[in-house]
């Protein structure tokens, strides 16, 4: 009796070793069916669309692989470099797309697969983002875009004696970001120091996304130091930090998640995809959040493309699927289920899209708001390390927030960090 558990464990180990041999020799083809693997970060709301497509094309089956945002892109890069392991179809977020358009050989050229005729279907800048430098290769088709709006808490605005209705709120900061900061001061004073927004990095990023030129020029040179728009955005953000408006939260952390429900901050930059995030994260706050326009004009934040790594064995089938998937009809369905906003302008005239409202946000006309936002976006060139550059500047603002550096120290460290890029 005494040694039983050890023996059991050893027997189990031996059995497992056998099972391993069996498991590894398994597999094979499924009678002419093709399984397309789709690698995503998070739920893109494609589930029902796979089923629909398989009904239209019974020979195609799908396998979805979801990984965490950063892990997904790291893995994709590793798999591309080693020529193996990538899915047939992979999602790439806009912050990473330029890194991949720089190496078009590692992807199937969609222009050769039939995309050449479809150019007009997407917003022009969305199409351009996935185009290789020489314009000879297209590596991805656009899914959603992140035209920005501003989400705000009605209850908190009311407590602070500010207007509550979305048109009035939009009017508060219609002029510029300076107005937004002024409203923030008013809010802080009225509430005795409550936070106006969640993190300064987001505010800074929104301002940069609205500029004609961002952190790179068209020749992929970093222009952080020389671009006046960046300097202005930095200064205004620092002003807001020093006025105590930032809740100093880091995006995607549990504390940040909790803030949506708890109302630890009153406003947040809202690209279309953010709305569904708020809705799932703060289910108890229905009716408390509303959506106004963003100060400073239009800009894009986030959004993705679907790419076909060259190592995939079924380029035709995969292409046919993503062409269907990113067509207006399907993008509309995705918007309805997830809030990810379509990148195909044909829909912007469509009542089905423009007429859409969201009960959670006090029946805000999300279709109208985000259509206007997307149409007004002025294309901005995205450089190869776009996401990392913005993250580096965001960290500089973080150092001011937590008091470890003065704005000048933070700025010079940012510039120093960027030199190594």
């Amino acid at each position, binding site marked *: 009796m005494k040694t039983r*558990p*050890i023996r*059991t*464990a*050893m027997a*189990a*180990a*031996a*059995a*497992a*070793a056998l*099972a*391993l041999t069996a*498991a*590894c020799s398994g597999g094979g083809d499924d009678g002419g069916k093709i399984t397309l*693997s789709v*690698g*995503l*970060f*998070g*739920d893109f709301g494609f589930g029902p669309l796979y089923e629909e497509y398989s009904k239209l094309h019974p020979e195609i089956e799908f*396998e*979805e*692989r*979801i*990984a*965490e*945002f950063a*892990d*997904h892109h790291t*893995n994709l890069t*590793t*798999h591309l*470099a*080693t*020529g*193996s*392991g*990538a*899915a047939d179809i992979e999602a790439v977020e806009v912050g990473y797309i330029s890194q991949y358009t720089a190496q078009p050989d590692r992807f199937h050229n969609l222009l050769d697969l039939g995309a050449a005729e479809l150019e007009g279907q997407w917003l022009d800048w969305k199409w351009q983002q996935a185009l290789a430098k020489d314009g000879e290769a297209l590596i991805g088709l656009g899914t959603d875009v992140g035209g920005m709006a501003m989400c705000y808490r009605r209850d908190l605005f009311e407590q602070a004696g500010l207007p509550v209705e979305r048109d009035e709120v939009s009017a508060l900061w219609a002029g510029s970001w300076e107005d937004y900061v002024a409203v923030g001061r008013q809010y802080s004073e009225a509430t005795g120091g409550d936070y106006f927004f969640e993190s300064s990095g987001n505010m800074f990023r929104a301002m940069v996304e609205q500029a004609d030129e961002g952190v790179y020029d068209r020749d992929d040179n970093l222009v952080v130091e020389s671009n006046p728009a960046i300097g202005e955005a930095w200064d205004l953000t620092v002003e807001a930090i020093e006025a105590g408006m930032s809740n100093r939260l880091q995006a*995607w952390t*549990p504390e940040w*998640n*909790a*803030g949506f*429900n*708890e109302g630890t901050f009153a406003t947040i930059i809202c690209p279309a*995809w953010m709305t*569904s*995030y708020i809705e*799932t*994260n703060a*289910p*108890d706050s229905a009716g408390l959040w509303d959506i106004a326009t963003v100060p400073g004009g239009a800009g894009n934040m986030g959004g993705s493309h679907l790419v076909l790594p060259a190592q995939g064995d079924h380029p035709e089938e995969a292409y046919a699927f993503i062409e269907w998937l990113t067509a207006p009809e399907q993008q509309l369905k995705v918007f309805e289920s997830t809030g990810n906003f379509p990148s195909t302008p044909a829909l912007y005239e469509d009542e089905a899209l423009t007429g859409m409202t969201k009960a959670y946000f006090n029946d805000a006309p999300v279709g109208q708001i985000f259509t206007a936002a997307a149409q007004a976006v002025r294309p901005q060139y995205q450089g190869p390390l776009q996401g990392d550059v913005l993250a580096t500047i965001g960290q500089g603002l973080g150092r001011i927030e937590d008091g470890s550096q003065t704005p000048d120290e933070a700025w010079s460290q940012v510039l120093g960090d960027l030199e190594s890029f």
Partner: protein
Amino acid sequence: MTRPGLAVPPAPASGAAVPRRSDRTLPGRSDRRARSRMRALREQPGRLVYLTLVAVLFFSGFPLYYSFVVASRDNSALAQVPPPVLPGANLVENVERVFATVPFGTALWNSVVVSASVTASVVFFSTLAGFAFAKLEFKGAKVLLVTVVATMMVPVQLGVIPLFMLMIELEWTDTLWAVVAPGLVSAFGVFFMTQYLRGALPGSLIESARMDGASTFRIFWQIVMPAARPAAVVLGVLTFLTSWNDYFWPLIVLSSPERQTVQVALSTLSGGYVTDQSLVLTGTMLATLPLLAVFALLGKYMISGIMQGAVKG
């Protein structure tokens, strides 16, 4: 990743302890007398000692308990002030959601297969090599043993890319072999077994077996293996835990859902725009349950292994 030796957690080892083990396993008469005298010397543990131990136990168990609390509530519980300390009513729902979101059953099975294979192999090969290093004389033994120890000090993260290229050559990517193969042997395990067998295996026993005409393998099979059992349990449990909890390497080398191990499956729970912390902790808890089962089953043997000097200081 599972490069042998490094992935294994820090179990101190080596450096023969002062007493011979025979003193402990076969207490001589004089020893017994000394012990009874000793007993008279030792005071009964007071209330303070028990209180301290209860406090220690509380801190040991609380984080695990707290993850259970979060797992049994919904996401909003995390923002409650004061934070909840009692389990809520959402456990079943959360577990169902975990199973609905990721193929958790398959992942669980894959993890069992991988960890058990790795454990069986590490224990066997470590005992074999440990026996050679501890009790057999051969040229270059010292140098080779030092090599083994040195390899324990190399950071693992970077072996990933070349290892991945190797797996492509072997056409093992996205198979469980890719996760098992690098874990089949462990430098730590060899070192661990060498240290243990040095003390636990009297040289005279081997000599007399040789006199009886036993081959080296027979000595290994009939004398060394049974003698190594206490250390084998400790090494086995440690290896199983490490293999089970391995994350970085499986994430890179396994891609299709039906090949995922538990830890890789867990990573998809926190994926995407929405992070539902209660769901993540439910998954974490589910992934820990099998380990608790192993611990409940073998913990006693592991402790007695450690007490018999399996981890040699």
